[in-house]
């Protein structure tokens, strides 16, 4: 049984300054769910990375285009969905390899750690991108499960994939 009565929805302009609204909201949600300090910090960081990507890569920093964030408090997990108006996320986005730091240090502007960090921090991710819209969903199981025990389950009925999504969901 899913309950979505506790959903929180936030829409911010695509400017890094407003990412903090989402990051701070994540702390309130984590406190509500009784997350320990470390897991709260994990949530905050994962949400920050996803929102930063939506601002930069999805909406390309156009301040008049909104990033949407939904905190979906489901019966056994928290899902955080980050929505941008890009629709241009690569299909293999959620398969980032561990960074080769020596290679990164050879670059002028080392980037590309965000998705990798998200993969380390969350219990699952799901991507739908296409037709001018990207939905990137991360979830956190409410009962902490050792990573190897997480079943490769299909997204629950609360996940609402948008019609016409071009990529199927998957867990890390």
């Amino acid at each position, binding site marked *: 049984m899913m309950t979505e009565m506790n959903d929180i929805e936030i829409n911010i302009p695509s400017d890094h300054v407003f990412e903090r609204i989402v990051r701070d909201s994540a702390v309130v949600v984590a406190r509500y769910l009784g997350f320990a300090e470390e897991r709260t910090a994990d949530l905050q*960081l994962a949400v920050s*990375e996803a929102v930063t990507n939506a601002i930069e890569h999805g909406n390309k920093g156009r301040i008049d285009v909104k990033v949407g964030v939904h905190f979906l408090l489901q019966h056994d997990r928290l899902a955080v969905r980050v929505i941008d108006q890009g629709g241009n996320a690569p299909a293999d986005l959620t398969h980032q390899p561990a960074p080769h730091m020596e290679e990164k240090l050879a670059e002028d502007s080392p980037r590309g*750690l965000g998705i990798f960090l998200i993969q380390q921090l969350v219990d699952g991710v799901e991507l739908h991108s296409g037709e001018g819209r990207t939905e990137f969903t991360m979830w956190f199981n409410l009962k902490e499960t050792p990573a190897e025990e997480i079943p490769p389950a299909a997204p629950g009925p609360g996940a609402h994939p948008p019609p016409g999504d071009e990529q199927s969901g998957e867990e890390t």
Partner: protein
Amino acid sequence: MSIMIEQNSGLTIVRILTDSVDALSAKEIEAAAGELRERTALDFGKVLFINSAGISALLKLVIEARKQGKKLYALNVTAHHRKVFEMVDMLRYMPLTTLEELQATTT
């Protein structure tokens, strides 16, 4: 102002004054690249949040330190940030230390 720089002989301490090492403070943190001494210690004592945009800024300091043949250290890193730094293998390039340890080995 996001950082304050203290220069001692051969040791730079970069006090990060912002609570967030992120996209907003990245530029000011990168600016410390012009202030590296023989050894430079970044003090994270006031930092409550670090994300990958902030780590990118820190990596630019790592790159600059390497170019100049100088050493970089991290002070007062929380357990969470230590975990994150370990995930991206940062501590190899910016090992954790304490001010006491640095001062004990002042050249």
